[in-house]
């Protein structure tokens, strides 16, 4: 009896898997051929993408994972340069790199600052973007001019913007301190004092991030039906109530997406920090990615394994963030 039932269960599972998961080779060769003949077009279409992604994302990812479990550095990886042939002499060290990173105070210092940096950048640029989008969503004279002007930071390549900001921040000759001097205020060491440097990098990143928020929010605002506002007005809702009960819920899908995306971007925002302060003064503004960069490009010999371990940890942190964030949204009834 018991034997019977288990057999039938197994059979059922088997049948299910064949139907649901696609062909099983050997037993039912006909299905594979049938699947291929019906779906070959789809497979052919997808194949190049899969191949490209496999080469440019999959391979480095796997290679990075592998390197992070070795002691590879610039001096012991294999290469041939002219007459010089250097054989590979690195070896596996298991998870030593990870324990070294996690037991190092540097990692936790950098992580704390990275989180402060991400949260404040995203929060400020989101708020500013929301406010500006609301202002630009009304009918006002020269609206398209304002929209253009506010998108402008996005049109300029980031490194150009950052270098321009660096000139503005220059303690001796920068225009910001010249203006302050005109008002009788002492020069501020924008990039030379740890606290000011932190504020400066956040300012620049917010400046760069607002246009993205603005565009996304404007799009979201325009998708909210005008009737809702009319109906609310009829019911006697004031401006704040309309904002609170119509605009914000209407924007929820857009805002949850942009917050996730910009959170990940800011977490990994290498150019702003690197080009503005190089992580300085000291290591005050260094985030996790700039430290990983330092390991693999600044120290000598370049520490490929250590840098790979940092990279994997950053990837894990971001995946964790995305999963937790999505789960929190789903709990609020958001389908994303």
């Amino acid at each position, binding site marked *: 009896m018991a034997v019977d039932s288990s057999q039938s269960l197994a059979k059922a599972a088997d049948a299910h898997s064949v139907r649901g998961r696609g062909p099983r080779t050997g037993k039912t060769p006909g299905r594979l051929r049938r699947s291929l003949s019906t779906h070959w077009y789809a497979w052919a279409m997808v194949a190049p993408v899969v191949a490209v992604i496999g080469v440019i994302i999959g391979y480095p990812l796997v290679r990075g994972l592998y390197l992070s479990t070795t002691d590879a550095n*610039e*001096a012991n990886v294999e*290469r*041939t*340069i*002219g*007459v*010089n*042939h*250097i054989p590979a002499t690195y070896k596996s060290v298991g998870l030593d790199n990870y324990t070294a990173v996690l037991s190092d105070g540097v990692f936790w210092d950098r992580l704390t600052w990275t989180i402060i940096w991400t949260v404040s950048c995203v929060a400020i640029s989101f708020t500013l973007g929301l406010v500006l989008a609301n202002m630009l969503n009304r009918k006002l004279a020269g609206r398209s001019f304002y929209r253009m002007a506010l998108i402008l930071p996005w049109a300029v390549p980031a490194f150009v913007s950052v270098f321009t900001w*660096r000139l503005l921040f*220059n*303690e*001796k*000759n920068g225009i910001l301190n010249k203006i302050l001097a005109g008002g009788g205020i002492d020069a501020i*060491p924008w*990039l*030379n*004092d*740890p606290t000011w*440097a932190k504020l400066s990098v956040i300012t620049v990143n917010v400046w760069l991030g607002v246009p993205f928020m603005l565009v996304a929010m404007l799009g979201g605002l325009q998708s909210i039906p005008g009737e809702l506002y009319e109906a609310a007005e009829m019911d006697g809702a004031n401006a704040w109530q309309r904002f609170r009960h119509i605009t914000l819920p209407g924007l929820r899908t857009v805002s949850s997406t942009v917050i996730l995306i910009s959170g990940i971007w800011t977490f990994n925002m290498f150019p702003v920090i690197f080009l503005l*302060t*190089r992580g*300085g*003064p*000291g*290591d*005050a503004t260094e985030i996790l990615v700039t430290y990983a960069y*330092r390991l693999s*490009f*600044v*120290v*000598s*010999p*370049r520490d490929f394994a250590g840098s790979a371990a940092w990279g994997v940890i950053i990837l894990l942190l971001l995946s964790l963030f995305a999963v937790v964030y999505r789960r929190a949204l789903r709990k609020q009834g958001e389908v994303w």
Partner: protein
Amino acid sequence: MRRGIAATALVAALALTAAACGGDDSDSGKSSSGKLSGTVTFWDTSNDAEKGTYEKLAKGFEKLHPDVKVNYVSVAFGEANAKFKNAAGGNSGAPDVMRTEVAWVADFANLGYLAPLEGTPALDKADDYLPQAAASTKFKGKTYAAPQTIDTLALFYNKKMLKEAGVEAPKTFDEVKSAAKKIKSKSGKTGLYLRGDDPYYYLPYLYGEGGDLLDTKSKKITVDDPQGAAAFEVMKDLVDSKAATTDASDGYNNQLNAFKDGDVAMALDGPWSIEGAMQGKEFKGDKGNLGIAPVPGGSDRQASPQGGWNLAAYAGSKNLDASYEFIKYMSSAKVQQQTTEKLSLLPTRTSVYDVKSVKDNQMVQFFKPAVDKSVERPWIPEANALFEPIRLQMEKVLSGKTSPENGAKGVGDAYRKLLKDYK
């Protein structure tokens, strides 16, 4: 790649014609008989004020060897090291000849990026080189570069400003401090510009207190000895007492601008900045206003680090024969003499110091004795990596985030991680 094939084909074709003509044998067995040809890509790291002169000199090689094209590329000093490593390690885009900072040679050679130069035309009249310049070109008993120029730091000062304040060129950092006070009260200007963003400029303070980075003989890390902390203390005191001004970024340009425009009276700098300083309003019509004195000393001595530039051939170069010849040309006595005449840079060949135009050059007269007494840095593969931990701690100390003692300790700890066999 395509260019590589073309160049190889060209070389092969020329070698054949040369062989057919029964060309003359050159003394080095390696270089094939006949004319050199192809392209030599040269990465130059000289600064904005110098690079025009270097480009002209490099192009002069084409006159000697009409079939060789010199592809001159100017690379910013700050990026050159990383850029070369990316290109050399990735086996694509590396230059044939690279102007390397003295501390980079051992590093690049250790990684297999450089071609050894013994027995090649590149090492021409090697006995003529100043011994301390030659020391930086050797790694594990082989020579990997030819010295091009040698330098050290000194105190640049604005003679007029010091005279107005009634002070002599200071000999110690204490004197710098008191001179700065007088300058401030007379003209309102700051006394000294202190490079807070570049570790190289920490060395005079460290040596001045009697310290050093490492003791390579006994394999000992000495940077976190009390002298290391004292050096940070002196720097911090100069900044805190407003005798000096500093920056954590753009220091090179800020310093040069502040000095040549007369915003500061003094700065520690090297011969590479003479040309740039002369273009500023304080010195343009009045070259004699630029005063140069030995670096101020600390409580122990007056000493500054030995620097300079070497020329190295990339091991993977497709045109090594022409590269060797190019190095020979660029480090030759004649070219060194020209760089001194035009840029006041110091030659690495003893014979060049006997040339009249070099002997009469005021900057050389000053810098040569300073170079003779300059302190050699540890010529180990990690030499260049020794700087980053200093930069990190120096900025922390100057911005008041950490104490001089902890700063020195931080540098020492970083060295212990870097140099496994040191204690």
